[in-house]
Structures are given as structure tokens and as C-alpha cells.
């Protein structure tokens, strides 16, 4: 009951960011899909090759859904950073940690409510919109060639990247070190894990990288939140 109350409170505070991220992705993603309607069909008609010539595989490579992938990335990372700052930095700036912590519940529950709210925000603000855009792009009126399911899986992994940056921002906010020492180490670690994530050859290893990164950050954040003096 207490946990649900905390969760509702956190979701209420996250709501403007969820709406902003979802609106951004929905509007610009839809515009991108709209511009893509039958575009690849026209592009194919204009693509003419010479006789007896080599064909570059890069010329035949295509990113399904065009720039939607980049929009998903911006939304997920932006939302993650915004939530991390909102939940862990603003309270420091305004000196309102006391209002957050002075409740008839333990810190673990408070932190769990924050993290759950962030996960729900990423799912609602980015994940579900991505699913809608993918479904839309799979309809025949957009392209005769439907996008592969790997794109949807990859998009959800990018939502995980948003969670990675959220945890990194949160850990940086909770750290009491000076900014020129290790205050931003949490964010630095998130960036490192992100680059490692993009360097993998398979979606499976990307997922493993994400799990390792979020696991380490989650653990450090939990420890810091529990033992820090606010």
C-alpha cells in the first residue's frame, strides 16, 4: 500500500516528462514514417546500375523506419537523463530530501518506487510509442517490404539504454564527491557501457552488456542511497 502510494507520487512527478517524450517520438516519428510512405519504392525505381559493374552492398543497405531509430534513442536517453535529474538532483538543489525521506517507510521502498516509476515511464513514453510506429510501418501502405522484427527488439534495447542513463544520472546526483573528482563517475560509467553496447555483434550480447551495466549501476545506487547522509 505504502509502496503504491509512493509509486503514484513518483509517477505524478514524472508525468510531464513521459508526455513530453511520448509526444516528441510520436509526432516526429509519425512525420518520418509519413515521409517514408512508398519512398523506398520510388527510390528503387530510380536506382539504376551499370552493366558489368560491381554493386556496393552499402548502396543496398537500408535502415527500416528511416530516422525513427535515432528518434527512439534521443527520446529514451533524454527521458532517462531528465528523470534522473528530476528525482535525484533537484532535491539536492532545493534541499528537500527531508520531505522525501522523512516518511513512515524505509529508504529501500522509496528508492524502489523511484526506479519503478522510471521504468514505467520509459515503457510508456518510449516503448509503447515505438511499438505503435513499428506496427504502422509494417502496414502495406507504407512499404511493400515490412521491417524486420529485429528492429523492434533493438528499439526496446534502446529503452534499456535510457534506463542505463537514468541510473547513471541518479548515481551522479547521489554522490557527494566534488564535481571535478568522481561526482560524474556514474554518468561516465553509463557512457562507457553504452559504447560497449553499440560495439557488440549480436543483439544477445548487447542485451548482456545492458544487463551488466544496469546491474552495476543499480547496485551502487542502492548502496549510496541507503548509506548517504542527507
Amino acid at each position, binding site marked *: 500500500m505504502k509502496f503504491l502510494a509512493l509509486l503514484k507520487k513518483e509517477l505524478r512527478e514524472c508525468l510531464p516528462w513521459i508526455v513530453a517524450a511520448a509526444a516528441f517520438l510520436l509526432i516526429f516519428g509519425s512525420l518520418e514514417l509519413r515521409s517514408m510512405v512508398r519512398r523506398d519504392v520510388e527510390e528503387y525505381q530510380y536506382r539504376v546500375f551499370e552493366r558489368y559493374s*560491381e554493386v556496393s552492398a552499402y548502396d543496398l543497405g537500408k*535502415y527500416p523506419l528511416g530516422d525513427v531509430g535515432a528518434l527512439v534513442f534521443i527520446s529514451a536517453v533524454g527521458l532517462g537523463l531528465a528523470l534522473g535529474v528530476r528525482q535525484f538532483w533537484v532535491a539536492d538543489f532545493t534541499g528537500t530530501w527531508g520531505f522525501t525521506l522523512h516518511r513512515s517507510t524505509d529508504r529501500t521502498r522509496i528508492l524502489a518506487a523511484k526506479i519503478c516509476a522510471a521504468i514505467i515511464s520509459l515503457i510508456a513514453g518510449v516503448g509503447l510509442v515505438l511499438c505503435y510506429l513499428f506496427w504502422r510501418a509494417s502496414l502495406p501502405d507504407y512499404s511493400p517490404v515490412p521491417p*524486420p522484427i529485429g*528492429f523492434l527488439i533493438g528499439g526496446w534495447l534502446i529503452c534499456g539504454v535510457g534506463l542505463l542513463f537514468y541510473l547513471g544520472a541518479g548515481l551522479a546526483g547521489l554522490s557527494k564527491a566534488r564535481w571535478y*573528482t568522481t561526482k560524474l*563517475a556514474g554518468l561516465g*560509467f553509463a557512457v562507457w557501457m553504452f559504447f560497449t553496447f553499440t560495439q557488440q*555483434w549480436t543483439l544477445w550480447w*548487447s542485451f548482456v552488456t545492458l544487463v551488466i551495466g544496469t546491474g*552495476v549501476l543499480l547496485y551502487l545506487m542502492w548502496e549510496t542511497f541507503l548509506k548517504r547522509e542527507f
Partner: protein
Amino acid sequence: MVKRNVLEYVSQPAEEVIALILIMFIVFFAQFLVTELVWLYTYEKPSPPIYPDDPEWRVHGAAKYFLPDGTIHLVRRIDTEDNGDYTKEEITDVNGNILWQGIRKDRPFKYLEWESSPREYAEFYGEQQISRMLLSPPLPCVLEVPVRIGEKVQEVWQYDLEAQLFVGYRIEGGLMGYLGADGFVFSKAQAQPLGKFKGLALWTDKDPSSIVMLGVTKRRIYQIDFRTHKVETVFDSGQSDIESIRWHRWRPMNPKDQNSNDIQYRPLIDCRTTDHRHHLIMCEPNKILTVELPEQMQTEQSSEYWVSKVNFTTTRDALFLQYREKHFNPPKSHKLLEQYQREYNSKPRPQSLQIYKVSNDGNLELVNQFDWIRPVWEKPYPADRREAIVRWASTTSPPVFDLLWYLFGDSLYEFGSEGVSTMRMMQAYAVIITECRPRYSLLNCVLSAAMMVIALWHGWSRRTSWGKLFVWLVVVGAFNLAGLLGYLALNHTAVIKCPVCGRGRGLERVDCVLCGAELPVPERRKLDLIFDT
């Protein structure tokens, strides 16, 4: 409570390790930046290598070509720079007699052309490029081959990465079928996967609307014609894996570019398998010949200049093998390669170029051979200057990398250059260790010792326990500059003057680390509510 305390002991070191690793990356980036900036600001355009005008260099520096009857000619560039077809050349025989002088496009002789790695033409996509293009998470690119019938594109074939086959769609919409190992089928259940591509090349022939693809998997080579929906298994290696392929004239040439005076070649693919056999796949007429070379000719497939090379070519009349022997036999350890290269270049070395005819049963018959001496060679390449800068920049690298290179250098190098591996994350770190390791070990150790002295001076008055100070000194010694910066970032605390002994002391412990005196109790003021009872 016990579990909580155990986790606390893990979280503190975990934070420190993460901070240390991040600082190490920053140091490596700074090293890279310094290297590039110094190289950029001291850059001088290298003069083209001009070989001394003596007989040995004239012979060694000349390109050696074969006529179809096995005669060897030496072709030497007279111009200081290569001007393509308008480069001035001199052709001599093996005795030094000048046969012809003029510009390249007017050469009166037709020399044999040899197979080459398709990669050299940048039209063959190896495993890494394919993986980067088709597999790169999280949002992979898809390969789609359009098929034009008449004036318009009517079909699109999309490569399904998971199923490892091509899926065909009509441009008006609707699924057409699948192209797998057994050819075109209508249902996915009937389609046999092609296998994971190690390499592929695409081209058009006389019909520009028809794209043909040559795909190499672990044990098969396929040729797929998307217009006719034909999948032909060009070669099946059976039990051994395909290591690499080289080809010659496999892709059809424009008849306009062919001269009737030119040597008539047969299309050839030279497929080398892991059992050191060469499977020569020829067309016109179709034939596959397996050749097992003598042991000294079983060279590694490498573009490095020191590696002996084997090349095949096939004309309408005969199948030839060219063997270039460089007598370079480095030790197995990659760590000793650089030293062996310097020794190799420091002395004259015998070289040999041989041409063989390959019979129908795979036997070799020597047609001609040319031997000469390669003079001592000092290589003035820009790469050497960059390496010299890296040597100095890497003096701040962790000594522990040097130790790892000493103990596991060959394994690290092989792992890092393995190509596509599922352990890509670890591959990158293996490459970082091999590239960022210190080159001047002694200087690196001296610097590390200096860093340890600085850390000891800083930590002497701030220490909370001998064990912690010792561990940090070891870390600083092992990681050099990154270790010192990490130590300072995590341990720089305030120091005050001890009221008893007058020397500096930290505030992380209650008693003075030098005299043992406790911190003075603050004076009680009027409004203090906390007092002893």
C-alpha cells in the same frame, strides 16, 4: 545486517574500480590526442622512396611479370611518381638487357594477371563489414536487392538475418517466396538456410537489372541470381572450413573492355580451406581442381610485405601458379615479430620468384625461376614516425599492461585480431592492452615509481590504515598516471595542523596518525543543548 555489511565492503571497491577504469580511458584518450597533435604539427610530406641507383636495387625494386610461356621480365618505373597509364617504364630481361622503354599504356607485352583478394577491390565484404552492416545492434541495417523487370522494379529481396535466407516481396505488396540453399521455394518451412555469410560480393552482368551475388559461408560458396531466382552452390568444402577466397575474372567483364589480343582467361576462384588445400573453381568449362601445395608454399593469407605469396591464374591453355619466396621465417610469438623484422631488414636476403604449371591431377611443374638478393632496406615511412611518438606518449601507460603483454602478448594479439567474435567486448580490451602498452619499459617503471612517491607523500598524513595505503600504492604503481589520478580523486581530503604535535593530519580518523592525539573537543557554548549528564 551481516549481508548488508558484506555488500558495503563490495560497493566501496566497486566505486573505486569504476572510477579508476574511467580515469584510465581519459588518460588513453589524452595519449591519443597528444600523439595525433604532435604528429599533425610535425608532419612533413614524405618524399617518395627513391632506391639507390645500383644494380641490386634496380633488380629488387623492379616489378616482375611473366609472359604466358614463362619468360620473366623486369619492369622498372622511370618516373619518380606513378602517373597511371602514362607512367614512363623500362622493361628488361633477367640479364639486365633493355627490351623496351615507353609509357605504360603502350607496353608491347601481355603479361599474366594473377588472382587477388576481392578485398583489394573493395567490392567484397568480409565478415566484419557484413556484421557491422547487417548485425550492428541495436538497429541493424537490412540488405535489400531490387529486381527490375522491364522498366520498373518489380521485386525486392530482403535478407532475413535470423533465418539466413532471402525473402522476396512484390513491389505492389505481397510475399513472393524464399531463396535458400536449395533455391527458390514458396514457403519458409521448405527453405534451407544459406548459413552465416563470411563474405559477399554483388555485381551486374550484361543485364543491368539483374544483380548477382557471390556469398561465402563457413563451408559453401553460393552464387545467387535474383532475377532468375537461381541459387547455385559453386563449391562445398565438405568437412573443412573455408579460410579465404581469392578470385580472378569471376565477375563478367564488359566485352568492349576486352581486346582480342589480350590473354584469354577462364574465370577462377581459389578457395583455401583450413586443411591448407587450394580448391580451384574454374569456368568455361566448369571444373574444380584441388591442389595440395608443398609445405614451404603453405603460406598464411596476409597482405604484409614480408609474407611469401602464392597466386594462381588460369588461361584457356594452362593453369599457372606463381610463388614468391621471401625467406622470412619469423618466430611464432608476435611479440618478437618487430625485432625479427628489424633483423630481417638489416641484412641482404635472398628472394625467389617461381612459376609453375599445374597439371590436371594437381601436380606442379616448374616452368621458370628467378633469384635475386634483396639489399639492406631502411624504411622511411610515416608509420615509423607515428610509432616513435607513440613510444614516448605511452610512457604514462600502466606497467601492468606491459606485464600482461609479456605474459600473454601472443594470445592477446590473436584474440584482438580474431575478426568477428562473440566476445567483442573483451576483444576491444585486448586491443587496448596491446595498443596502449608502454614501449619503453624502464622509463615507464621509473615514472610509476615517481607516481608512487607522490602518492606516498600525499597519503602519509591522511592515512587511515597501513593496509589501505599499501593497496593504493600498489594500484598507483600498477596503473601509473591513471592510478595516481584515481587515488587523488578518491582520497584527497582536508588536512589540518594537529594541535598537539603541530604536523599535518587528516580528518578521516579520530586520532592523529603521527602522535595519536585525539581531535580537541569543541568548547561548549551557551546555547548548546547537548551536554554530558
